[in-house]
């Protein structure tokens, strides 16, 4: 490691807030753009599976009724 202590690394020679802040914001943006399609795919897939089950049920139901 380049720094002598964790406190030194945190301080970044007086520019700690700038450096860590820049990395923090970057990781937040990356996390959000990753999360958006992942959550959307999950929700869409659940909808498609449910719809498929419903159709299957509708096909089976008339036979059960007779």
């Amino acid at each position, binding site marked *: 490691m380049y720094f002598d202590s964790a406190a030194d690394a945190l301080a*970044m*020679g*007086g520019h700690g807030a700038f*450096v860590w802040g*820049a*990395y923090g914001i970057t990781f937040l*943006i990356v996390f959000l753009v990753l999360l958006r*399609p992942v959550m959307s795919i999950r929700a869409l*897939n659940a909808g*498609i599976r449910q719809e498929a089950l419903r159709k299957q049920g509708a096909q089976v139901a008339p036979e059960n009724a007779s």
Partner: protein
Amino acid sequence: MWRIVHQFGSPPWVYGFCDRVIPWLLPITVVALLTGSVWGLLFAPTDYKQGDSYRIIYIHVPAAVVALAGYYVMALAGLVSLVWRVKLADTAMRAAAPIGAAYTAIALITGAIWGKPTWGAWWVWDARITSMLILFFLYVGVIALFEAYENKTVAARACAILSLVGTVNIPIIYKSVDWWYSLHQPASIKFTGSSAIDASMLYPLLGMIITFYALFALLMMLNLKQSLTEEYAQSAWLNKRLTA
């Protein structure tokens, strides 16, 4: 050759490709991103002139480089969509826009944060910075334009034209530091001749540039998969895939 071209235009094939690659690319990219950040933040040496604030370079430069490269992806997809009317090409064009906007935002925000301790100002209306802001508006413009039209075929065509016209901005961004007197420094990494940056700083920087490209590819596949799932929710091939 034609078989490959045909596959790229086939939604089930592209969906399957994304589905297979994402589980590998996602963990690799996350690990590379964390490793590269720790390398740049804690292990690379301090700059003799700027001190530790220079460490922002390891996210600022990769984000800016890939934000520009991403524009080519979007414009090229727009061209294919306009000329050959390939539906998948306008899906790809729309997949690239939010990623490009996010990368440009990262470049602008980290640039502002870097500018404060280095230049003494968060923002200056400098050629490089202003042309990057225009790039951000172009990306956001493509997203907004697509939403503005009720008819999505017309929307896709308008977006393709906007992204093609916006290509004019790309050489301006590249050349801005040479054409105008600018606070922003010119490129330190050169493909020909020696770079103006030491190997101990160059390697983590190159590593982060490659990682940001990989992240772009990953996000592109995720967005494509998302759009295809939405567009083909009623199709037999997707239903078979998901319920099998």
